[in-house]
């Protein structure tokens, strides 16, 4: 099943199981249905439970928060995560604060599905990740699935969770295929996955970088380097146990994050490691992140903006003090084709 189909499958599962779940967002009921992820929901569940909204992201976020107080469990979908910037007051000042501020009287079981628009020259305002921004805020949970399996299981877990969950979806992964179990299952929030075991270095990756890390690990194996690859899956609360256990064994860390470096998730991973696995570290940890710049639109710049398996490979060799090796090809993920 494709990643985007898994997102839809999870939505159908939770909506069938729980009449309090509803889905809203610009484009939810239209023919394209948010990259196919919401197609047919209005038919099955009615226009009361899957509907379009006015272009009012800010108030609609608050409307979702208000609906949770009265027992509902909304899934609010954004075609681009960039649009969540219009909603930060409701997310950060309200949803994230409510449980603590009222001492548990009103938790906020809200899911924000937000899509990262990398590809086809979408440019500075349509391709941001923002997961580091959300992961900084206590009161939120942040998940970034990397596989169709987790796309389904994490979305179900997000809806089940009583706290606001920012569910970040890289459309770059939408067409990826993978095994997806039938039926209702959760991938627990707060648990990373060891997707490849190894001994020489830990490569901790976020979302689309999990595949790149695996590719790099494959190439490294051929060079006699055994890399362990972690799929972080949840960025808040971070599964530092899994991370630290791995680094304590391998003694080396490379982080691959689909975001800017400064004050991002990559920084947090290095910080946690330096604080709590310092003695185990044999070499400086390395961050593979986006360049510290807005994302350019030009086809001459965009592909080179994003690091991939090649950079992860180089970073691992760097931390092993091995110097450069024969180049590794770039990403083989099918790039997103326009017009949108």
């Amino acid at each position, binding site marked *: 099943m494709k990643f985007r189909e898994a997102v839809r499958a999870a939505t159908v599962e939770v909506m069938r199981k729980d009449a309090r779940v509803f889905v809203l967002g610009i484009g939810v009921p239209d023919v394209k249905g948010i990259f196919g992820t919401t197609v047919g929901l209005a038919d099955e569940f009615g226009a009361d439970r899957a509907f379009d909204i*006015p272009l009012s992201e*800010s108030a609609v976020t*608050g*409307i979702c928060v208000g*609906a949770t107080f*009265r027992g509902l469990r909304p899934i609010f979908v954004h075609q681009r995560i960039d649009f969540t910037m219009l909603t930060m007051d409701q997310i950060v000042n*309200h949803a994230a604060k409510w449980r603590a*501020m009222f*001492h548990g009287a009103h938790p906020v079981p809200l899911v924000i599905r937000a899509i990262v628009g990398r590809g086809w020259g979408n440019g500075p305002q349509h391709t941001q990740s923002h997961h580091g921004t959300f992961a900084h805020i206590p009161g939120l949970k942040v998940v970034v699935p990397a596989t169709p399996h987790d796309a389904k299981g994490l979305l179900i877990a997000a809806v089940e969770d009583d706290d606001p969950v920012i569910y970040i979806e890289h459309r770059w992964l939408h067409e990826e295929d993978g095994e997806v179990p039938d039926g209702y299952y959760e991938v627990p929030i707060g648990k990373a996955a060891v997707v490849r075991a190894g001994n020489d270095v830990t490569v901790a990756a976020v979302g689309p970088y999990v595949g790149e890390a695996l590719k790099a690990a494959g190439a490294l194996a051929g060079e006699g380097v055994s890399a362990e690859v972690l799929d972080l899956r949840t960025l808040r609360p971070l599964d530092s146990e899994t991370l630290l256990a791995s680094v304590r064994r391998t003694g080396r860390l490379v982080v691959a994050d689909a975001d800017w470096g400064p004050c991002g998730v990559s920084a947090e991973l290095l910080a946690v490691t330096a604080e709590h696995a310092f003695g185990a570290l044999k070499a400086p940890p390395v961050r593979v992140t986006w360049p510290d710049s807005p994302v350019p639109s030009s086809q001459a710049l965009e592909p080179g903006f994003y690091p991939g398996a090649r950079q992860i490979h180089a970073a691992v060799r760097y931390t092993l003090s091995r110097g450069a090796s024969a180049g590794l090809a770039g990403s083989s993920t099918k790039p997103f084709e326009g017009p949108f």
Partner: protein
Amino acid sequence: MSLERSLYEAMLRMRMVEETIAAIYPDREIRSPTHLYIGQEGVAAGVCAALGRQDVVAANYRSHGWYLAKGGSLRAMVDELFGRATGCSGGWGGSMHLIDVDAGVMGTSAIVGGGMSHAVGSALADRILGRAQVSVAVFGDGAVEEGPWHECLNFASLKRLPVVFVCENNLWAAFSPLKDRQPPVEIHERMKAYGIPSELVDGNDALAVHRAAAVAADRARRGHGPSLIECSTYRWLEHCGPNDDVAQGFRPAEELEGWKARCPILRMRSLVTDEEDRSIRAAVMREIEDALAHARRAPWPEPSWKPAYYEV
């Protein structure tokens, strides 16, 4: 009990509670930003008298009056102001963040306009679940300038949601007069732009507020969509804190005096007997003393966080 008497009692209770808060505030037992409602009691009293306990209200940082009028526990509120574990928000919120889920007081926000969408969302939930309840959004004239205000009105009108918008127009937002913030168009008249029925009422006339609120609540319950009530009123004290701000040079003295003459409580005084007035005052005073005593004895909250790993 007659409507008049219960409105009078509700207002007097708010007033006496807040006068007590103002009086003891300098003692520093209450330590959070406190926005007093004195002068505006007619609005909360009138609106809440038109609501049932199951109806809900989303208000803002200036919510002692709304919380009490809607039936929130006075003890829990005073405990909250005192920062105690038994406070309605466990001591985490302070004066600006009150809640009483059972009484239909949704958690209040200190962000101007922040709670308005919560009322709309509550109404949406009732619509989806097929419940005939009313959600009330309370906000000031300042909130009218925030974008989400506009988005909420558009959304509520589009979906014909069972929500009543109550604008407390007290002519000021903190230290800024209305005329420095908005062009001269009456707020209620702007509702034509949203296709929302609206009414201007004297917010210091609790009976008039009640009449308008009853109509609006009824409209909501019958599925006829949202309404807006603009209540003209005035706050007597400074924006935040227990003092007079006229003396500090913020607002014209005549303006305040004019509005004090139109005190919502005074206005209804003749509708209750001296005996009733006395007995209400006595009962409220007992209640306040009980609440204060309770707060002073109440336990402090414990931190929810642990010492850092580097601490002993």
